[in-house]
């Protein structure tokens, strides 16, 4: 086994330029595939957090969990009449005039907001009832993007707010700024209105129900999940490119292995006549394929980890937490294996067409 494998690798090393060309090609589908998986897993982790026990009351057909919904205090009364003791109000909107200067903003009920989303305060003091007006907690990604620290000022719709804390949730919320409900009402000129009410999922209302006045009930997080899914069509499209590049890589690998094996056909047939098994050509090809596919795939992983991650941060608009899941690495491994096996299959099938005598006569 070792002799055949060493022979295969040595032959490939002699043609290192060809091997390098194919190795670089292997890098492309593997790197692209892993980058897409990184993007998908990032989107799923940050945009698919459904809060199972919570419902959102919002204006029908709006994107209330981001912006666009506006409810009067009448809704609060309606909900209380239905038996909900303490509907949690929130304002969700976007401050800014362009995508680059926009901030996802949330006006929170200072008493109840810690119960809605788990967050970790990385620096400073979280918002409390005693917090000064015009105080803001900002997500760590927003802080990084704007270069802000606790004590700095952040301008929201032309008004300065003091950053009192920087938090981390591990979700898209890390791009948000949280201010008190009263500040948000003043900022957006809402008077006593709010964007949404959040209620527990243990009352008479269910996701999908409607209320008079054009209100709809939905599962908390569902809207964000749907928005994240809007990018799926782009991922699917890129998936086709990955498939095409995979087949191109297989064809190139097969071509190289086939022609190298053809040049070595006499040596291989001699080995077989010396007692090496019928598996010799397969092993020879596998060693050469491995010498190309393994480093090519590792380079692909490295490229996804560096270039892919950087590109994803730009295309997602807001930052995404990208990290390899074991399943992504396993899938990339399966893709590499598929390239390797299919690349071997063509030359091997061709090799098997000849008997030993025919191969020995070939010189």
């Amino acid at each position: 086994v070792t002799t055949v494998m060493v022979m295969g690798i040595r032959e490939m090393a002699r043609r290192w330029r060809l091997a390098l060309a194919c190795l670089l090609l292997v890098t492309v589908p593997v790197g692209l595939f892993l980058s897409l998986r990184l993007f998908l897993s990032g989107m799923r982790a940050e945009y698919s957090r459904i809060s199972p026990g919570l419902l959102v009351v919002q204006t029908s057909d709006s994107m209330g969990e981001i912006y666009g919904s506006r409810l009067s205090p009448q809704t609060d009364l309606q909900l209380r009449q239905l038996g909900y003791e303490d509907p949690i109000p929130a304002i969700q909107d976007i401050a800014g005039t362009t995508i680059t200067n926009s901030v996802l903003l949330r006006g929170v009920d200072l008493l109840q907001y810690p119960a809605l989303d788990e967050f970790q305060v990385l620096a400073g003091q979280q918002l409390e009832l005693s917090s000064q007006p015009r105080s803001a907690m900002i997500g760590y990604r927003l802080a990084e993007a704007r270069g802000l620290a606790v004590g700095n000022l952040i301008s929201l719709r032309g008004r300065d707010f003091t950053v009192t804390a920087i938090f981390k949730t591990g979700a898209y919320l890390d791009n948000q700024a949280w201010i008190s409900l009263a500040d948000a009402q003043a900022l957006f000129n809402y008077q006593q209105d709010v964007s949404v009410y959040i209620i527990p999922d243990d009352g008479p209302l269910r996701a999908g129900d409607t209320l008079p006045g054009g209100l709809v009930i939905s599962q908390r997080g569902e809207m964000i999940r749907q928005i994240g899914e809007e990018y799926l069509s782009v991922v699917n499209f890129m998936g086709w490119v990955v498939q095409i590049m995979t087949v191109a890589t297989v064809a190139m690998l097969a071509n190289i292995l086939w022609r190298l094996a053809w040049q070595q056909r006499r040596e291989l047939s001699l080995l077989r006549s010396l007692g090496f098994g019928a598996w010799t050509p397969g092993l020879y090809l596998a060693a050469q394929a491995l010498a190309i596919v393994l480093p090519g795939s590792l380079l692909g992983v490295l490229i996804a980890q560096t270039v892919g991650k950087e590109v994803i941060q730009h295309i997602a608009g807001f930052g995404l937490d990208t990290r390899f899941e074991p399943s992504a690495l396993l899938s990339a491994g399966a893709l590499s294996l598929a390239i390797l096996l299919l690349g071997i299959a063509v030359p091997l099938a061709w090799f098997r067409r000849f008997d030993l005598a025919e191969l020995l006569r070939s010189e």
Partner: protein
Amino acid sequence: MNLAQTLWMVLSDLWADRSRTALSLLTLTLMSMGYMLLAGFAESMRLFSEQAAGRRDLVMVERGVLDPMNSKIEATLIEGIRPWVEGEGARISPCQFRHMRIEGQLVQLRGCPLEDWQAVHHLQLAQGAWPASGEVAITEGASRSTGWEIGDHLVIYGTSFTVSGTVRASGIKFLAVWMSLEDSGRLFGATDRYQVVMIQAAPKTDSEQLRAAIESQPSLAGLFDVMFLEALFNRYTEVVRGLLGASQTLALAAITLIVLGSYQATRLSLEERSRSVAILRVTGFSEGQLHSVLQLRSLWMLTLAFLVGAILATGLLGYANHVTPLQVQSVQLDVRLTLPLLLLGYPLSLVCAALGTWISARSLLKQTVAEALR
């Protein structure tokens, strides 16, 4: 040896090793396809992000809002400036604008005066009829993306509307549902409030001057931005700029892969034919002539691969646009291979192929004839 003889020699050579040629062609075809898909994608992004609008089309939105949906313009304000604006020969068209989920699809809802749809909003009726009260029209993109057809009923904000026709809009292919301003005012219970106001300057008016004059109207009190429609598009499409840059880079990267494909195709051939090449040199072929033959061989293969790739990519994109249309932010991106893309891609591919061939041939042709014959 004349050109015809050289061509014949190249074709015979390719045919003699047809299995290897087929695999090399497959590699080059798929690489070309990869470039074409990515370039088509990048082009659709570019067209989307660099959307041009008529230089006469102005739009007014509330100052400081990101999405026009959040803008509020009171009808009294518009009626206040209408006589003056129309006195300048311009047309003014107030509209209600929302992003909504209709039947589970995120689309734009635009309520504008019916009489302005063609003249101000540049809509053309593609199929069916212009809507009457209780009816809506949908853009072709919305129809394709959602499967809604003429005669379908859409429940919008709790009220059922019938689709009377499909419309074609110049500019960005938003997935949009259009209804009359009267209907949208009734639907949202806001007949006295708009989100955007379109203003179309008269043909010979200085649009920039008109824009500045409207914006500085005392009654608007500096609360509104009046901008060219193109500027609003640019603001809206900023979100895809990152995607545009990434797709353009990927398309460029894909085409450079042809260097690798061409390199391996030539290298494999030369390695196996070192004796044949040496004999050619003995019979008087110079290194330059051999390079030319190899370049011609590479050009043939690349041209064939590019043509086949273009046909396959066109078919695949047609299928993709039909079955799984690309959609970003309620905008349908029509990914197509355009002639300029092919005209740019072909010479670029040729350069890459020539480079790959030259690199692979260079070292092998540097051998002496004696070395090659051994």
